[in-house]
């Protein structure tokens, strides 16, 4: 037998058992929808399988791909929503200071109910803990546009959150 060189399929497939719960867990934890999480998990692994073979495969890298897939999903969803309603108000884009200790459980519930682009921005910035420039790259927006989006997202979040408390 000749020595078999490193085969990328061995690498990805050998990573599969370890990476699958991480990728699926990441997506499920952020989108909360089994069907969507399964679709995006499939897309993540398949795009990696079909893609460049010279990138060292790690779970972290797969999570990065999954994050892009999630952002793509919300971007698509946002386009659907815009067919029905204008979600981006023209109010001045300044933050009201908000001094509150968020209930984590309720906060994630609220996040799930926001317009998709707002949910995407807050998830990348806060749930994943990315910097604004990092989030901007994934959202395919400028840093300034991302800052503005975050302002609107926080405003919608606060509105829904406070509405939930009052209810």
């Amino acid at each position, binding site marked *: 037998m000749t020595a078999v060189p490193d085969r*990328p399929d061995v690498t990805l497939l050998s990573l599969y058992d370890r990476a699958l719960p991480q990728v699926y*867990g990441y997506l499920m934890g952020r989108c909360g929808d089994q069907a969507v999480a399964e679709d995006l998990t499939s897309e993540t692994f398949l795009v990696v399988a079909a893609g460049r073979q010279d990138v060292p495969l790690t779970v972290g890298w797969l999570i990065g791909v999954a994050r892009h897939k999630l952002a793509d999903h919300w971007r698509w969803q946002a386009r659907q929503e815009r067919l029905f309603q204008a979600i981006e108000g023209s109010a001045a884009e300044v933050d009201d200071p908000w001094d509150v200790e968020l209930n984590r459980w309720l906060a994630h519930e609220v996040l799930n109910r926001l317009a998709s682009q707002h949910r995407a921005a807050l998830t990348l910035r806060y*749930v994943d803990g990315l910097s604004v420039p990092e989030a901007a790259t994934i959202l395919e927006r400028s840093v300034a546009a991302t800052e503005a989006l975050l302002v609107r997202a926080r405003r919608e979040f606060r509105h829904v959150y406070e509405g939930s408390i009052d209810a």
Partner: protein
Amino acid sequence: MPESRADPFDALRAPITPLAPDPAFAAALRVRLLRAVPPSIPEEHLVSTEMAIRQRNGFRHGDVSYITLGLPDLARGRAFYGAVLGWRFSPGSSEHGVQVDDIVPMMGLSEGEAVPGAVLGFRVDDITAAVAAVRAHGGTISDPHREPYAMAAEGYDNQGIPFYLHEMPPVPADPAASGREFHNGDVHGDVSYLTMVVPDLDAAHEFYRGVFAWTFNIGRAGGAQVSGVAPQIGMTTRPEAGPATAGVILCYRVDDIAAAVQRVQGMGGQASEVAQRPYGLESLCADDQGTPFYLHQF
């Protein structure tokens, strides 16, 4: 009093909580990955440029590696298919068989077979595992043995349809075919499609999914399109052509179906009127020894 105003949104921060998905989903995705990953292979397996361009033995586990077409009379078969499809032939391993040159997948004509008609060979990654899978899914099969071309085994599926297995190292898909889900031949004379006539679709599904990981898109009554195999395969319980016994009907790609139909008739075969199908032009034919086949022009 200095106010330490932490960002309340920091409460959203959530580390990744690993979560195992539905096992059926995980298993299905693994199969898709096995098929999707372009395997890299040692250079020495690429014996010629031509092989690198046109893989004649399939390229992944479960693809058709070889087709034997058993005919009552070999000489008549050579004359008929040579004239109709332009096939050229090389000597086979005995005087009762010939190899068809160049076409995809690799194919041979043979006379005096116990089973007339087409018998498919499938490539497998690991013949020991594949033989075990055949037996586990109700098939019967010989133990693997070494042949000049590959480790091989012959058997019958769970409904008595004969086939054989060839263990072959994985190879890259044809560059021209990369990313293509279905393979219907690239040039005149190639096999464009295979119709498998099976007594029971559910039983076929069980066997071929289990052994080769094919996926079935069960469609119109009594039929299914199979994904994950080259060339493309359709399964039916009710063939349009030939005796309704289990087996395989071959389809061939031609450049000019009207001219090909004339050649079929000129050589003593039969051909139906050319029909427009969603996928192309089609004629249902029989050779001069009664073997049914289809012609396709895409």
